[in-house]
């Protein structure tokens, strides 16, 4: 009795100590002096709630039964921590930037704030955590019982049930006091975290102390201990490969998905930098926790009588050696493990239950008026306190109903497998933007059902819901539905079997449904934020958003509407509100207006969400919205690009058609080329031949006649020569074999000479010239002869083809910056549009009066201008025929 009383006294003082620690931590934090509370060490120690009583006591029992397999439970989380850069870093960043409050909140937020998903995760979490809480209560009760026995048998006063109840009530009280002290802010509980950090130290110290006692106190040293191990029934390395790999995976998954682990890893995280320290410190912690497990198990198997419960070796071995103090320490270690787990689990679960089940129901019942009156805080606190008590009591009731025992001991891994069902949705959610709400829902449901059917229900043994017959032969005798041999895969370890099927089908359902469904705008928004959390969230945001930022709205609107339009809209609104400046007040009118404007670009729902988020300032950062806005802009740009491309294609097609018709015309022209050249050569030759025959054959021609016919022959011969010269000239120019004779000259002089030369071949028609000699005062550096050839041709053409009664040619010179334009415009009827395309081709003579010339002039002019680096073009829109000679600046002499 004395021992038990002492134990209770120690226990109570220990609990009192924890209250004090939590209280002072909370007070320091409130006074802003809690710097030491937020150290990486405290963070790492708080993670130790992973090591519950199940691991404190159970690991030794596990080792005693199955050898080294217990290590998988620690190796999995170690690998996750060591690989923090992959997942945890992202989870923590998302948790902080999205103000995530629980694992259910994470899943729900990611998938468009779906409360249905949150409810599913919450139910799953509660179902799998309740047996686990019961397990903790059982371990405390059992350890009490051990001391009670050791204290001298026949303790009829003492009953396990009352212990469990007391413990449950105490834990509820502690959790309510420190877990719901502050609702506000980031859900961090400094007092609780500090207390569990202290408990973490106690349990590690206790286990190490027992271990050191066993290795050096009982076995007599390290090598002796190792010999002892090899000599024991655990001496052979024996492991089921499937279980080894499966359990490592399972514990790693559970480490991420367990609500209480998520609470300490993500929600209570104060600084992302702490994760860096924890990445090696936490593996070190669990390594130390598991270091002496095998020695204790081996020594326990050696020393204690056959049939002793190996789950209690940590207590019974010191007791059997008369080490009451050590046993007491060990008891405190186990007590710490159990209590810290229950406390954090209760906080995590109550947050989920309260936020996702109680509050939505309450809000619906009050018709949403509560959220306006600002009266909700009180309700939330109350609902959370009730939830905590309910969760702990649920564990107690479960414990009472199942009555403890072996079934409970196995529940640890079953519970792990349950929460692990969240993993596909979680990882898919943070790494894959294609994951959708329905996909997550499908995956979770499938995984949950299989887990329930193949693992959870069978874990109670036959007779509990599933009859023995159903367990052995499948429900209704359907063989391939046997819970522990689904689809006929028999002979597998039941746990690995359930894990394999549930995780596989869960993932498949998640993926398939995600691929087939389309996410809502909010889902896509959240997906982008989660997956790209490192790109657009510099860090956690303050909750004090609240006030709508016109400037933010402006920036966002600019990204969606375009700068000019957005500015115009804002200025209009500001003017309407009678404000000076560009930014209007975010009045409801204006916001509604803006939303309408935005919805034109991004759709109504998204626009609503975006404006709502900026104005509400709560869960989406401006940067995130920018990212979405940019994505929209990108999509619009992309579709614009597509449009442009199709326009381009149309344009190209048109150009091709044009080129084709031009080619056709050219080909007709080329066909005509031979007959043209033939015609041009034969015509003068006809005259020559005819008159030379006349001269030869005719007698009695007068001197006048002789003279006249001879000069006709002479002129036609000259014409023939000129034609041949032109052809050669063109051929040389076209082949680029021409040598330019670059000289300095004066534009005015050049035009004078050209006019004179054109007049020299005057056929009698008068052509009036209009020139502005002032503009012609420009120096040139070019091939003056060639340029003059072009001018002469144009003047001669005007003289030949201008059909006005009083033909007038205007020569305009324009100095156009880097180009010099010399325009030749006559007052005739001009050249028809379809002829304009071909006038620069060879023999493309148009117009009616044929006044000599072979139709090569413009073709030659064009070639010349190309050689001179300029061009000659037909000017549309003038009244008469108009040609423009453009000379590049380089052709103008440097001044």
């Amino acid at each position: 009795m004395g021992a038990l009383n002492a134990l209770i006294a120690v226990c109570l003082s220990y609990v009192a100590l924890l209250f004090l620690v939590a209280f002072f931590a909370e007070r320091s934090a409130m006074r802003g002096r809690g710097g030491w509370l937020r150290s990486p060490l405290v963070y790492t120690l708080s993670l130790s709630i992973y090591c519950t009583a199940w691991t404190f006591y159970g690991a030794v029992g596990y080792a005693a039964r199955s050898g080294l397999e217990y290590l998988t439970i620690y190796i999995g989380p170690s690998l996750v921590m060591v690989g923090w850069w992959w997942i945890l870093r992202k989870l923590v960043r998302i948790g902080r930037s999205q103000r995530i409050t629980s694992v259910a909140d994470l899943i729900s937020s990611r998938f468009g704030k779906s409360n249905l998903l949150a409810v599913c995760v919450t139910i799953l979490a509660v179902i799998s955590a309740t047996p686990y809480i019961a397990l903790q209560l059982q371990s405390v009760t059992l350890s009490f019982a051990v001391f009670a026995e050791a204290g001298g048998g026949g303790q009829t006063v003492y009953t396990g049930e009352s212990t469990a109840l007391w413990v449950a009530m105490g834990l509820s009280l502690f959790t309510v006091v420190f877990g719901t002290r502050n609702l506000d802010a980031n859900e961090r509980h400094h007092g609780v975290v500090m207390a569990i950090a202290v408990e973490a130290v106690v349990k590690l110290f206790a286990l190490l102390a027992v271990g050191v006692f066993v290795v050096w106190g009982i076995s007599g040293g390290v090598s002796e201990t190792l010999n002892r191990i090899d000599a024991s029934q655990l001496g052979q390395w024996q492991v089921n490969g499937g279980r080894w790999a499966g359990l490592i995976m399972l514990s790693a998954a559970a480490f991420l998905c367990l609500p209480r682990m998520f609470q300490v890893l993500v929600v209570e995280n104060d600084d992302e930098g702490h994760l860096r320290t924890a990445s090696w410190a936490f593996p070190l912690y669990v390594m130390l926790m598991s270091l002496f497990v095998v020695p204790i198990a081996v020594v326990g198997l050696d020393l204690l009588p056959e049939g002793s419960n190996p789950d209690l070796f940590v207590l019974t071995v010191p007791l059997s050696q008369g080490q009451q103090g050590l046993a007491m320490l060990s008891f405190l270690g186990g007590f710490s493990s159990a209590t810290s787990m229950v406390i954090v689990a209760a906080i995590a679960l109550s947050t989920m239950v309260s936020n996702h089940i109680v509050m939505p129901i309450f809000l619906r019942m009050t018709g949403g008026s509560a959220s306006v009156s600002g009266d909700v805080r009180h309700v939330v606190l109350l609902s959370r306190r009730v939830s905590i008590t309910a969760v702990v009591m649920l564990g107690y009731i479960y414990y009472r109903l199942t009555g403890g025992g072996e079934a409970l001991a196995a529940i640890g891994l079953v519970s792990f497998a349950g929460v692990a069902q969240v993993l596909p949705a979680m990882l898919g959610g943070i790494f894959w933007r294609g994951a959708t709400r329905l996909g997550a829902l499908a995956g979770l449901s499938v995984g949950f059902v299989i887990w329930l059917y193949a693992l959870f229900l069978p874990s109670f043994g036959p007779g509990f819901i599933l009859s023995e017959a159903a367990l052995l032969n499948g429900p209704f005798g359907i063989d391939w539905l046997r819970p522990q041999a689904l689809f006929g895969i028999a002979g597998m370890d039941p746990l690995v079997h359930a894990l394999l099927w549930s995780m596989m089908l869960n993932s498949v359902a998640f993926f398939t449904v995600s691929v087939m469904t389309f996410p809502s705008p909010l889902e896509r928004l959240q997906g982008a934020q989660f997956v790209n959390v490192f790109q657009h969230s510099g860090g956690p945001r303050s909750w004090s958003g609240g006030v709508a930022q016109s400037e933010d709205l402006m920036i966002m609107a600019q990204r969606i509407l375009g700068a000019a339009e957005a500015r115009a809209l804002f200025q209009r609104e500001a003017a309407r509100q009678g404000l000076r400046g560009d930014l209007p007040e975010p009045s409801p009118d204006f916001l509604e207006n803006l939303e309408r404007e935005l919805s034109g670009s991004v759709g109504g729902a998204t626009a609503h969400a975006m404006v709502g988020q900026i104005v509400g300032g709560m869960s989406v950062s401006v940067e995130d919205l920018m990212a979405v806005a940019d994505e929209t802009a990108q999509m619009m740009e992309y579709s614009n690009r597509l449009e442009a491309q199709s326009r381009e294609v149309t344009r190209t097609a048109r150009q091709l058609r044009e080129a084709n018709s031009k080619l056709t015309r050219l080909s007709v022209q080329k066909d005509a080329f031979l007959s043209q050249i033939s015609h041009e050569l034969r015509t003068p030759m006809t005259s020559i031949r005819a008159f030379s025959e006349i001269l030869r054959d005719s007698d009695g021609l007068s001197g006048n006649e002789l003279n006249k016919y001879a000069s006709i022959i002479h002129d036609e011969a000259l014409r023939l020569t000129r034609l041949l010269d032109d052809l050669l000239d063109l051929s040389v120019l076209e082949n680029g074999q021409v040598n330019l004779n670059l000289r300095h000259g004066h534009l005015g002089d050049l035009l004078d000479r050209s006019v004179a030369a054109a007049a020299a071949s005057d056929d009698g028609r008068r052509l009036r010239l209009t020139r502005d000699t002032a503009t012609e005062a420009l120096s040139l550096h070019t091939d003056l002869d060639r340029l003059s050839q072009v001018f002469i041709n144009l003047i001669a053409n005007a003289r030949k083809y201008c059909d006005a009664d009083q033909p007038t040619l205007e020569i305009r010179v324009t100095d156009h910056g880097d180009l010099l334009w010399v325009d030749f415009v006559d007052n005739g009827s001009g050249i028809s549009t379809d002829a304009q395309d071909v006038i620069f081709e060879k023999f493309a003579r148009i117009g009616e009066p044929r006044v000599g010339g072979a139709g090569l002039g413009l073709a030659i002019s064009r070639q010349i201008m190309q050689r001179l680096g300029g061009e000659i073009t037909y000017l549309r829109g003038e009244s008469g025929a108009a040609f423009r000679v453009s000379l590049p600046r380089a052709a103008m002499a440097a001044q």
Partner: protein
Amino acid sequence: MTNSADEPVGPRPTIFVEKQTYRMRRIMDAARLVPLLGVVLFAIPLLWPRGPDMGIMTSRTILYLFGVWVVLILVTMRLSYVLRSLPPADRSTDRGGAL
């Protein structure tokens, strides 16, 4: 996210970076590799002969497993120490493990 004309947040990621930044990126790569190394090393005992007679002694296995554990802890400790000097800006331009 492909880059459009204007990237909203942070500087545009560049292709060529300073030597120190390059060093950092490779250390991040190493940090990503550690858990994979751990998985392989912890799976190795599965390949050892098992059985009543020819089996490996448990003590050997314990020494191996805890040895691996310690090595992983030391490597992670070293890497996280180096990554400590990572400027926050650089952390945010990191593509969140997507690289």
